[in-house]
Structure formats: C-alpha cells, structure tokens
C-alpha cells in the first residue's frame, strides 16, 4: 500500500530534505499473460485502467505505452474542461467527466488542480449568437448549469476584452459555464497512473505494440518490443495513432490524424481568471497558475504524424486573440508544440466494441479529449469489463457510421472542443 499524500507525509519528508519519497509507480517487466491490456498510457488509457481496477476489480491488467506515460496529447493540450455540448449523448459523457473532475483530487489522493474558474464561449456574429442560444436551451433541458450573458457581463468577468462595438467581430454576448475551467494535465495522468499502480495494474512504458494476435475472431495477445503478451481483452486508446494499431487487427477506422498546436506566453501577472473561447475567430485562451497565457486554436488542415505544425495556423490563432484582447499584442510567446489528434467525421469520439471479439477501441476525441478523461475511462472500463457498451458509451459505437446515426458536434462547436 502506498503512503497517502497529506500534510503529514509532506512534513515527515521535509525532515529528510525530501530524499525518501517512494516512487509514484513501479516500472515492472511485462508478465506473460493479463486479463486485459490497455494500449496507450495517456489520460484516457490510464483512467480506463484505474476504473477497471477500482470499479470492476480487474487488477491483473496492464497498460502498455510506446513512449512515456502522459507524453502524448495528455501532456500537449490546453487543459480546458467543459461539458456544454449540443447533443444529448455528448452532454451525458462530458458532464459525467466534468462532475468526476470535481472529486478527482480526493479520489486519486493526487492534486489534479481542477479549477472551475468559469468558461465562456464568445458570440461574435449574429449566427454564432443564435447557435449558442440553441445550445444553451439544449443544455438547460439536460440540467446543466449554464447561461447566456450580456456584453456588459463579459466585460465584467474579462476586463481585458475588446468591447469596441465597431470592431470586425464585436462581442455580442457569451455562453457561460461557470463550472467549467481547467485542470493540471500532467497531474491527471500521474494521479491515475499512481492510483492504478497501487491497485496492482502494471504500467509498462517504452513498450511499443508491433502486432495484434488473433485466434479466429477472438483477440489472443499482443506482440510488443518487450515480448509477446497473451490476453483476451485489448483496449486500444492511442488517439492519433489509433489507425496504425487498428490496422494490425484489420479493423479500418473513420479517423484522420492531424496536428493541433498550442503555445504559451511568458508569465505575466493575473489578467484573466476564466477560460475564453472565441470560436468565430478561431482561438481560445486561459492563464495558467504560473502566469503564462495558454493559447490554442484550430488544427492544421492536412494529415500529419509529425507533432509539428505550420506557422500559418499559429499566426491565425494569435491574430484572432490579439484582435480580441489588444493588450496582449506585445507579449512574447515562450513555447509552442503540436499533438496528433484523431479526427472523426462528426467530431464526436468513438467508444466501441469491434468486429474482433475482445478488441475495444476508445478514440476520436480529436481536439477535445482532456476534458473527457474521467468519464471516458469510467464508461470504457465498464464496456471492457462487461463486454457490452455502457449506456453512455453506446451512442458512440463504430456502428453509428454504418447506420448514419451521427452525433454531429462539428457544426455545434466548429473549432474549439
């Protein structure tokens, strides 16, 4: 049993100059066989493993990861958490995730720094205003705590916003989710990893999957760079690399991998204490606890596995934000990076069984996966453990592309997810 993190353990370790902290998770060698193997140790994969162990008592499981845990999109996003989607199925899963975030630090005994600082989506055209109003009605029917606010309220919450009514895209109002906000992305991965490890889950890093073994229509195991692992259940949670893994099992995916970039500025004093998304002009912004402005926008338009994007996309995002927040125009940007996101045709995720018995897939979160991590892990673990879709996961099955039963969020949230 791991030592609980607390003020007392902190004080005790301070006596030894913090030299004796135990490792947060083991680095075990893979066993020959597991009851289930999760491919991909990002937030979604680790959350799946955590809830498999915690909710379904499946502790003889492993998470295999090509690189290091949390090194993919979990460590590359802009940490925004919200649930104000248009469609009922989306609201159900994103709100489950958002509500789990509220108690996550206590549950994991790891400070995930969930900060429900409020999130607003600006309305900068009449069309966007009407679309947001429609979303607000849908969300109120679903019981979400969200409301439309006036330009005066926007200015009060975000004093640095450009409220000139004569500018090209004036602020006509905003759609506000006061319980939305941000979290600490790395801490979410680390917290789930530590929690899963404590229950006996093997997290095996630097272990790349090279093949998926089948016996007839049933999964039999995995070939990896650290040997063969036998298992009857595989959950593939590899985001931008999902197509390459699923090709190994002969399952074709409705996914295109693209690069989504983000950047942070030099740290400055607090200027903005909520998340602002400006979807018409393609940019969103929040301020980290270190003081950096965290900035994101839309994806680069073409298929890309390189984790590097074009300057054009960044310039587009920054231009939009300078127009919206003129005081940041002389701010220097410190770091910029890209992550490979898995885009589906309807911009909704895939949580599904497949035609191969024992092969499950959780992907397609595209540009907005971080906010969904706890909910995604919760329902995907249930789906794997019981070999049937969790009711909240059911609408997100692969079959929806066959049946034309799309969950269309691309119109509802064109840029920022």
């Amino acid at each position, binding site marked *: 049993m791991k030592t609980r993190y607390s003020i007392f353990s902190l004080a005790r370790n301070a006596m030894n100059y913090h030299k004796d902290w135990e490792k947060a998770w083991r680095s075990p060698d893979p066993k020959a066989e597991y009851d289930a193997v999760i491919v991909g140790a990002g937030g979604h994969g680790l959350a799946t493993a955590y809830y498999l162990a915690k909710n379904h008592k499946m502790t003889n499981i492993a998470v295999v990861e090509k690189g290091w845990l949390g090194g993919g999109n979990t460590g590359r996003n802009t940490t925004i958490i919200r649930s104000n989607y248009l469609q009922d199925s989306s609201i159900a899963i994103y709100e489950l995730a958002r509500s789990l975030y509220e108690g996550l630090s206590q549950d994991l005994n790891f400070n995930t720094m969930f900060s429900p600082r409020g999130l607003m989506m600006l309305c900068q055209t009449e069309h966007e205003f009407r679309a947001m109003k429609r979303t607000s009605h849908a969300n109120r029917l679903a019981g979400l705590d969200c409301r439309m606010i006036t330009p005066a309220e926007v200015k009060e919450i975000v004093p640095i916003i450009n409220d000139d009514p004569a500018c090209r895209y004036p602020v006509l109002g905003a759609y506000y989710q006061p319980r939305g906000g941000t979290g600490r992305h790395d801490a979410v991965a680390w917290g789930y990893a530590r929690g899963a490890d404590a229950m006996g889950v093997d997290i095996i890093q630097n272990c790349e999957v090279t093949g998926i073994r089948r016996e007839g229509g049933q999964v039999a195991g995995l070939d990896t760079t650290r040997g063969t692992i036998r298992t009857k259940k595989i959950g593939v949670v590899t985001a931008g690399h999902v197509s390459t893994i699923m090709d190994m099992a002969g399952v074709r*995916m409705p996914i295109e*991998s693209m690069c989504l970039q983000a950047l942070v500025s030099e740290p400055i004093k607090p200027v903005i204490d909520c998340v602002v998304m400006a979807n018409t002009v393609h940019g969103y912004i929040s301020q980290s606890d270190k003081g950096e402005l965290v900035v994101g926008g839309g994806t680069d338009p*073409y298929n890309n596995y*390189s984790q590097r994007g*074009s300057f054009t996309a960044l310039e587009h995002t920054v231009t939009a934000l300078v127009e919206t927040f003129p005081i940041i125009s002389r701010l220097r940007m410190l770091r910029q990076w890209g992550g490979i996101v898995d885009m589906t045709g309807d911009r909704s995720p895939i949580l599904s069984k497949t035609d191969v018995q024992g092969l499950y897939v959780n992907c397609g979160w595209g540009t907005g996966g971080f906010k969904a991590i706890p909910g995604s892990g919760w329902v995907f673990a249930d789906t794997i453990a019981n070999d049937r879709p969790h009711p909240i996961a059911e609408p997100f099955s692969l079959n929806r592309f066959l049946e034309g039963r799309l969950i269309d969020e691309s119109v509802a949230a064109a840029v920022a997810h």
Partner: protein
Amino acid sequence: MLVVTCPVCGAEGDETDFHYGGQAHVRRPATHDPANISDEEQRDYLFIRHNPKGLHFERWRCDRGCGKWFHAARDTVSMEFKAFYGISELPPEELQAQAKGPWADYFKSRAKA
C-alpha cells in the same frame, strides 16, 4: 510550412496558396453501381479513411493559381512531397510499390480492375 507545386499550371506556393482536399482516389459507389450499394460501401466512402503513418496520397486544389484539383503523394511523418500528379491519374508506379497497408491493397485492386 509545406511548399506545393501544381502539376497543372506549374505554380509553386506555400500551403496557404492551396487547399487540402483529403484522401485521394475515393470512389463514390453510387457513381458506378447506383442500384447495388451496401451500407458498408457507403460508410467506407463517406467516413473510413486511409490514415497511414508514412506515405499518403491526397488531393489538393490550386486555390490562387489555375483553380484545378490535383493529386499529391506525401509522407505524413517527414512531410516531404514525393510526387504531384493529375486528378485522373494514379501515382507513379515506384510510389505505388512503396505504399503499405490499405494503400497497397488499393493499388493492387486497381491493377486488377
């Protein structure tokens, strides 16, 4: 920043001068056999995409030049363009031979047909 060359008018420009059009060689089943289309074929046409890590074949449009659509072969890791070719053409044979996975299957099926 990608530098693209239009095989139709010869214009060279960066990616903002062109428009990305997604996967190449997608055939609309209704064009060929409108009476007998399965749900699977229609799904594959609309949603299933080749998404290789490596050599990929895609469509581009010469937005600020001649306005024509054309094809390109590009590596999705190195981002290097391997060839530009016409909208009604298949890629050069040496590139077809290098293709892997679903793309290799596709070119084999086209060779048979």
